[in-house]
């Protein structure tokens, strides 16, 4: 498949680097964006009316904020938050900047996934914790999140794939990783061998993640 004139031997170190970069980028994004998204999602869930921290103004602001940021096409988001990226990372290009942009995008995306999964927690168990005098923060930590852990894990697995996908768009700012590899060395050069090698690597990573995610979710939910 890889065309004869592609110096695959030369590409190999780049390929391996790309894999590593993708792993680093995606892990960091899921870790930081995951935590922030979890926090934001929990706030969305708990501040809406009827929630344990019901607070209309806060909810409205967060809800609108998430709706403002999420739909911005990633490539535009990258550019739009350039000044912020500059402040935070000292640059607007390269893997650091890309990771920053990914984290921002993931935070807002994941918040909606989290919100969606918390909604299915039985209100009865929240009441049980409340009746024992648990504080909202405590309830979030020890009831809401654990009770929704199964779906949450699936949600984060979903986000993992979405982030991998999104990281490909980071090619625009030299973000590195398999996406960049696939696009720069494959897609833009019409070299399908390289493209599919990169995609295959992505698929393997995703399969592993998805498998781990499903496994963990089943362990947690015991079904």
């Amino acid at each position, binding site marked *: 498949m890889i065309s004869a004139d592609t110096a695959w031997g030369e590409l190999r170190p780049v390929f391996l680097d790309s894999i590593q970069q993708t792993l680093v980028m995606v892990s960091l994004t899921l870790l930081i964006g995951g935590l922030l998204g979890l926090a934001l999602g929990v706030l969305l869930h708990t501040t809406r009316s009827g929630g344990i921290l019901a607070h209309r103004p806060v909810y409205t602001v967060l809800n609108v904020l998430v709706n403002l940021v999420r739909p911005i096409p990633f490539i535009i988001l990258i*550019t739009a938050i350039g000044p912020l990226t500059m402040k935070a990372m000292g640059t607007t*290009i*390269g893997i650091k900047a890309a990771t920053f942009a990914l984290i921002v995008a993931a935070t807002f995306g994941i918040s909606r996934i989290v919100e969606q999964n918390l909604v299915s927690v039985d209100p009865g168990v929240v009441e049980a914790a409340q009746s024992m005098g648990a504080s909202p923060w405590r309830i979030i930590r020890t009831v809401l999140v654990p009770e929704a852990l199964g779906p949450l894990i699936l949600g984060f697995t979903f986000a993992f794939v979405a982030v991998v996908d999104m990281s490909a768009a980071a090619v625009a700012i*030299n973000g590195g990783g398999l996406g960049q590899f696939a696009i720069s060395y494959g897609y833009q050069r019409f070299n399908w061998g390289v493209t599919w090698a990169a995609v295959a690597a992505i698929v393997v990573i995703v399969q592993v993640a998805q498998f781990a995610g499903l496994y963990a979710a089943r362990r947690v939910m015991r079904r």
Partner: protein
Amino acid sequence: KAVASDDDEGGTQTVSIGTTEASAPYWKPLQDLAAKQGITIKVVNFGDYTQANPALAQKQTDLNLFQHLQFLATYDVEADQDLTPIGSTVVVPLGVYSKKHTALNQIPQGGKVAIPNDPTNQARALLVLQQAGLLKLKGGGNTLSTPKDIDTGASKVTVAPVDAAQTVASLPSVDASVINNNFALDAKLDPKKALFNDDPKRPEAEPYINAFVARAEDKDNPTYLKIAKLYHDPSVITQVEAYSKGTAVIVDKPRADLVKITDKLKADAKK
């Protein structure tokens, strides 16, 4: 039926042309001129350089106008197609811009330069930087060089390939960017303030002649040739020059020359 050239009942003909700069001002006079000859030009816009050639090859467009011969040659070789130039348009310079420095020599050792990440523009950018004395390419480099060909020991700067449009946005992050003409203009950068430009008039610029491109079987299509010719009408050229702020060099070479150059580039690419 959005694309493909149809002979309508009324004898008018629709030609769809793929481009990446549909909003450029020269399309209007070109369309007007064509209309007078009974040709309706339909502009099909693509967001990145990669899709326009496949669309043409698959007969979803009739012509395209966005690429230089180098880009075309690379595509033909890599995708095993035989798209061919039917009329030249312009050569635009590729410039080195900076927000931090006002002269090349201010760029520090180990500085970072953003370059376009599509293969042909990337190679051209590397050559520009070599001309500017900022880096050295192993074996002198060619129109297919990549960052891997940089002789890092002998070079002053490192490069960061980004989306062609992002070369502008990256300016605050880097010491300099190599920016395509059209993006520089769109971003209101003054081409005269470029720290360095490659010279479009030099023979080395030949590969970067932009051209109308058609499928091989259409190379003699009179309508298409007519359109390619109309490009050089003064009313169009005025707009082209205005759009490029005078940096574009109009090129009106016979088709045979274009084909020859392209064939040579293809031969290089196959190596």
